[in-house]
């Protein structure tokens, strides 16, 4: 991922790990938007949004945190 340094990588990953919890509190309390779909449609949709999104989001977020933190 070409992060600045091993240390920066670890710190960035941990910061992401901590911040994602409060970031998701509103969603946890409000619930995901409800759509009347069949179980299969719902599964496909959620795997796409939360599965694929869940793989991509941290890469981007960790890269950004890595750039932002003043840590070599």
């Amino acid at each position, binding site marked *: *991922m070409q992060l600045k340094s091993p240390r920066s990588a*670890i710190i960035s990953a*941990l910061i992401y*790990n*901590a911040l*994602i919890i409060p970031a998701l509190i509103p969603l*946890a309390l409000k619930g995901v938007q409800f759509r009347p*779909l069949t179980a299969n449609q719902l599964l496909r949709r959620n795997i796409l949004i939360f599965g694929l999104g869940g793989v991509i*989001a*941290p890469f981007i977020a960790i890269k950004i945190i890595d750039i932002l933190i003043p840590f070599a």
Partner: protein
Amino acid sequence: MLTDDISRYPEFMQTPQGSNSLSSSSHTGASRRHTPKASMGGLYQRAIREAFVKLNPRTEVKNPVMFIVWVGTIVTFLVTLDPNLFGTVQADPAQQRLLNGLITFILFFTLVFANFAEAVAEGRGKAQADALRSTRSDTIARKLLPNGSTQEISSTELRRGDQVKVVAGDMIPADGEVVKGVASVDESAITGESAPVLKQPGTDIMSSVTGGTRILSDELIINVTSDPGQGFIDRMIALVEGAERSKTPNEIALTVLLTVLTLVFLIVVATVSPLANYVQAPTTIAILISLLVALIPTTIGGLLSAIGIAGMDRVAQFNVIATSGRAVEACGDINTLVLDKTGTITLGNRLADQFIPVNGHTVEEVAQIALAASVFDETPEGKSIVILAEKNRASVNFKTADATGVEFTARTRMSGTDLPNGKEVRKGAVDAVKGFVRSRGGVVSTQLDEAYERVSRLGGTPLAVCQDSEIYGVIYLKDIVKAGLRERFDQLRRMGVKTIMLTGDNQITASVIAREAGVDDFIAEATPEDKIDVIRREQSEGKLVAMTGDGTNDAPALAQANVGVAMNSGTQAAKEAANMVDLDSDPTKLIDLVTIGKQLLITRGALTTFSIANDIAKYFAIIPTILQQQGLVPSISCSLKVLDRQSFQR
């Protein structure tokens, strides 16, 4: 059934004929719906404080995933104090200390954030509970002694089986059943409905009273049915506060899965250390803990209980008391809904839909006579006839003050008006009107029977209209399906939920309504016993069944159903058998409950997916860097090649 329930929900408001008869209570529509508004002020300050209090290991140990983070934080804290505590580290101690301190700091906040999520969810529940609690303060109850005199005691000293006397202006001290007296009670404190409710003994529906409501007129003798702290409001408070929250089966299953996943990663990370040593990239305990925390599903581990509490809270906001979190969750797994026709699928009253003229009369003439016969009729049916007649350009062409209304009686099965000019107009059951016409010397044509049959086939109730000896036509009274239900049943079907309608109507009427409402199945001429049979049959096919009920004869079925929602207006027996009680007594809410339950399950699933997917990215961010430390080895694949070569040489 309570017919005015419908008007509480704008989406169920009937616009055409029904609007007049139903609008009487609709002005309360905007202000009602939810329980006393909870105040959210100071919620976040309190949650922040709670988040630190929850760092107590005895609290943390209940959540295995976060407990691992907790232990990790302690260990990194120790190596911050002494980097060489778990073996000598080659790097510069000052730099090590800084890195370890930073890791400790971030891990600490991971814990605080997770606790904060739970505290916010609980805080919202508590605010709701406080609002509810404010409606019930200790009151002085007049306990009825065996000798007939009364003794004033605190409501908290009342026990199940005691009899109390309440008079106008009193707060009802506990949940109970009316044994004597007739009085109107203001239940707005719990239901939000401002119109007082009539209470009297003996009747299934109207004899149960709830603690915290106020009696407005007359007096009642009440048999207390619950000990203090065990009433419905108390149960709701305990539940939204989280005091009685126990993990639901689904939550337990997910916690087991997350714990196993955590253990797997614990082993994986433990083996990284010798591997790293082998490739001459030794790593520190703080780095290994960081790797572990990044890999275990902390996101869902931290949010799991908040999701559950929020689900309960959402149900409470809907003015439904669930006796357990399990019941809320079960709503999401429901496969079959068993619904009563009257009050749930259709409005409680039949409304006039059409005038069918006979004997060569015109629709306008029928409308004119029907209007004249209905001006004194205050029933919703009567009012709907007036509205339909006025739509057909009929108008009252006599002085109502000079006319006399003839009320409906079970014996005559007719009602109507004696006009000032001496003519008598009547409307009523076709047989009754036939008899009336014959007694006035008129004849009955076969056209009337044809119209009668036509209306019956359409699933409606025919009312004949006559003036003196002349029959003018038939009013078609139609069962009105609540607006928007069809779409909701379609939604349910798409989600895989089957709907079954139960009705006492005959087969033809039932099939017409079933088709109109869009239910999947119906059972006509149903008895209360049929309900439990339907539930058993569905359950034997492995389905989860939800139903609503309010009568004592519904109790066995409510207990048998996986989700049984009793109406607050229902009997004590029904409420005790059910696992949810709807304070607004609106059976249609069952559909909303299914939605809330499903939303809870979907939210939990979505966040679990997200959390585990996150781990993949975090793994790739950390693993290569651990093995690259000090630029010794480029990647894991290289170390594996080394291992391969070795085994090959041997």
